């Protein structure tokens, strides 16, 4: 059983290494992800549009506020689930 698990893990690792050959080198600034106009717009527009110096905060709470609202739903659901699971019933 452990050998089978090890085989599956090594297979997954080999697939990841094979797929990783197409990824850009570490610290490359010429990638599409960094030169994308969405990224450049966020970097250039944060100070003008939101006035927050921290770009990650501006992204999280201003540009992607609805995403953060959904995130709070996830925390709420997890809290309710934990409370329901750990409640001791009075019988």
């Amino acid at each position, binding site marked *: *059983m*452990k050998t089978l*698990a*090890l085989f*599956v*893990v*090594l297979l*997954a*690792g080999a697939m*990841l*290494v094979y797929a*990783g050959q197409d*990824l850009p*080198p*570490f*610290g*490359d*600034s010429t990638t599409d*992800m*960094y030169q994308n106009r*969405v*990224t450049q717009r*966020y*970097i250039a527009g*944060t*100070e003008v549009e939101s006035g927050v*110096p*921290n*770009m*990650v905060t501006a*992204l*999280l709470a201003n540009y*992607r506020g609805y*995403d*953060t609202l959904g*995130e709070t739903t*996830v*925390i709420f*659901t*997890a*809290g309710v*689930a*934990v409370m329901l*699971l*750990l409640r001791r019933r009075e019988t």
Partner: protein
Amino acid sequence: MTGIIDIVHAEYNYWIYTALMMIGFYAMIAKKNLIKKIIGANIFQTAIFLFYISLADITGGTAPIIWEGHEDVIYTNPVPHCLILTAIVVSVSTTAVALALIIRIYREYGSIEEDVILAARKSLQPEFSEYARQKGGEE
């Protein structure tokens, strides 16, 4: 040989994340202890976080916080940082629910070892089916 070393050195972040992900995956599928399975899942998630954050890095770039009075500052990419902030919250939520489930399992079966729980379930099976039959008869 030097070619291989150069390739590994240029993309060492991908090798580290692959190694971490393999460790977490192995712990998730091979360990019998449920807490160790959760630790494996957390290592797996951390590998994903590391992958995204390493993709965001730019050589010579600073943290994505506006540096007053300086022009032509290279900032690292803030978008993956934001995505991973959300993913960390989801990771904490799933870990909390999983640990609560393990506490419930421990209260029912007195163990968090998977094979002990399965053996206990097997020995309890006739009672469970009897209970289900009575329940079905009532309705």
